[in-house]
């Protein structure tokens, strides 16, 4: 019987499509300058299919654009406005994911609601005009450089958040056993005070 089961198992394995098993969908979006890079995949490491549609809208549901993923579940979107970007993807079979890129991660040089004017660099009178222009040009470069450095950290942080730790596992079991204890205690109190009145529960009275 075991042998038969094993061979069936093997058959199932060969038929196995490489996706859509019961897993969480995870993804992340990271801004590098006005380029927003994102990736979508399953929690077991499989990435989204090539050509998965990602819809982008702002916080109020106004559509900003659409992109599709490449073979690695990766996509790039060029932001034109400095608004909150919501990324929504449907991987089929109930696997949906929504990711939000907060406004603060986009460069201040982009136009859009809620954006403050680029910081005025000429505050002290000694700065000459030429220097001011230089700073204006430098700002996007600096933002890009910083974003590029920070992106891997953000990714790592997101992966870390996604990962459940041993504490989570033990905590969950603890809750379940605690609830059981509570149930048993309540039951015990009930039978102790109610006595014979609550004998409706069929047989089994031996604890």
């Amino acid at each position, binding site marked *: *019987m075991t042998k038969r*089961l094993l061979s*069936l*198992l093997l058959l*199932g*394995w*060969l*038929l*196995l*499509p*490489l*996706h*859509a*098993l*019961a*897993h*969480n*969908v995870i993804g992340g979006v990271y801004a590098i300058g006005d380029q927003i890079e994102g990736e979508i995949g399953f929690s*077991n490491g*499989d990435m989204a299919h090539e050509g998965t549609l990602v819809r982008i809208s702002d916080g109020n549901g106004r559509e900003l654009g659409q992109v599709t993923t490449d073979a690695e579940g990766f996509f790039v979107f060029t932001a034109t406005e400095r608004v909150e970007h919501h990324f929504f993807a*449907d991987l*089929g*079979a*109930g*696997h*949906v*994911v*929504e990711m939000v890129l907060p406004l603060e991660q986009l460069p201040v040089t982009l136009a859009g609601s809620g954006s403050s004017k680029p910081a005025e660099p000429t505050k002290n009178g000694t700065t000459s005009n030429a220097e001011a222009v230089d700073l204006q040009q430098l700002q996007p470069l600096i933002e890009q450089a910083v974003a590029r450095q920070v992106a891997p950290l953000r990714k790592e942080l997101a992966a870390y958040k*996604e990962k*459940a730790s041993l504490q*989570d*596992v033990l*905590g*969950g*079991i603890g*809750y*379940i*056993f605690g*609830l*059981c204890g509570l*149930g*048993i205690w309540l*039951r015990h109190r009930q039978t102790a005070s109610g006595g014979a009145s609550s004998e409706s*529960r*069929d047989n*089994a*009275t*031996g*604890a």
Partner: protein
Amino acid sequence: MHIVDGALSLPVLAGGAALALGGVAIGLKKMDYDHLPQVGVLSAAFFIASYIHLPLGFSSVHLILNGLIGLALGWAAFPALLVALILQAVFFGFGGFLVLGVNTFNIALPAVLVFYLCRGGIIAASPKVAALWGALGGASAIALTTILVAASLALSGEAFVLAAKATLIAHIPVMLVEGFVTGAAVLLIRQVKPEFLNISEEWDHD
């Protein structure tokens, strides 16, 4: 098996919640409180099972165990699974709170059905027959859950047949593993702890 928040339409969410609530109510009413620890143990087993991913081929699967839970608990599978699903949502981020009702219903109803279909089989005198019934229960619980998941999605606008077919095929390995595990579990429990399945009184051979 966990549908995530945002995949289903509002009527489906509400319907699922109502059905799950009904199931939990029946489960609590029918539950034999002397077996509460066993409900807890199986709830904990389900809670962990989804967390442990077994590598299989190029991908990985995780056990769901709703067949085994159904065989052991019957209607009490509803409260047991609800508790475990809440905690999974809190600790692991599986599923979500809005879809909790739908998820509970999709996973617990097959457990109850398996209880009625295969319960007679696992108390059979022959261990082999019992293990086979257990395996059948484990596998069919997954198949039923898959169909219910596809139906939930279909009611929210996805094409049913396509979705059902895709998820059913995708879950064939899970069904096989689950059937194997449930069958083996029934075999083991019958030998070492028959009272866990409440079958000690119903047969006296070994």
